[in-house]
């Protein structure tokens, strides 16, 4: 869902603690291949199961930057301006394991990210809002201390 100019969030209507994004993001093995191609990060652990297991991982894992990129994209879809991010930071706390689908096409999602973004701070004078993001896959928090500062009109 992308906000159009008419529905872009106004800083005056926000309160600290408001949840502004609450969504899920499915992830498939095909998504990892597409991200590898788009980003140039062809690390084998993100697409080859045998290699991932050889280096001690449970299975193929998503690029941490695919997870971060996907959730920050939801933030800019919410602000309605993809150039509105002043600062985005995270800690990668847990792996997102993306096994091959047991049947059907490799485009079938085998992992799911849960994202909520709440308003952490508002600087009305500067027109800047800090969103605090919680991102999990299954029972694991996969991004920690994730904060995105955005400029709102």
């Amino acid at each position: 869902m992308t906000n159009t100019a008419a529905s872009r969030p106004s800083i005056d209507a926000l309160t600290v603690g408001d949840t502004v994004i609450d969504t899920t993001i499915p992830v498939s093995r095909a998504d990892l291949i597409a991200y590898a191609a788009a980003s140039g990060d062809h690390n084998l652990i993100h697409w080859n199961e045998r290699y991932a297991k050889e280096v001690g991982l449970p299975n193929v894992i998503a690029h941490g930057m695919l997870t971060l990129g996907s959730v920050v994209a939801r933030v800019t879809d919410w602000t309605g301006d993809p150039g509105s991010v002043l600062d985005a930071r995270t800690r990668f706390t847990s792996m997102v394991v993306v096994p091959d689908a047991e049947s059907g096409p490799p485009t079938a999602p085998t992992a799911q990210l849960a994202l909520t973004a709440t308003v952490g701070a508002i600087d009305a004078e500067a027109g800047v809002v800090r969103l605090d993001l919680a991102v999990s896959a299954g029972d694991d928090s996969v991004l920690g201390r994730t904060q995105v500062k955005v400029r709102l009109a």
Partner: protein
Amino acid sequence: MSVNTDLQGAQYSLPAPFEVGREAIAEFARAIGATHPAHVDAAAAQELGYADVVAPTTFAVIPSQRCEALYISSPDSGIDYSRVVHGQEQFTYTRPIVAGDRLAATTHVDGLRESGGNAMITTRTELTDADSGEPVVTVTSTIVVRGEK
């Protein structure tokens, strides 16, 4: 082989500017599910006041990881890439990246320490406008090199 701590403070620069193209922005936006039309439609970007299509926030990882790789993949670094996991990442923007930008990149090895058999390495990559020299975005990245057990 262990990580070379003598490289604390070292710098690595891309030999030529990274040229930001519309197709690369569109492909990256698609890969992360960024749906705003300003990623793909120059007219939509211009409506928001940008010269051309706007890159997603984390697009900066492409030139920054390319520059970081000059350090990480150099035989000098002592880093076994198969043992690297990503620890932290931060983007601090001066202005958004748009198609047509030519970005110069320099990676600084800011932090390099070993603890408990692991090494934690923090790099800071400054992406600047190659033509004007003005800052665009600072990308700070921490990787952990897992020790051999």
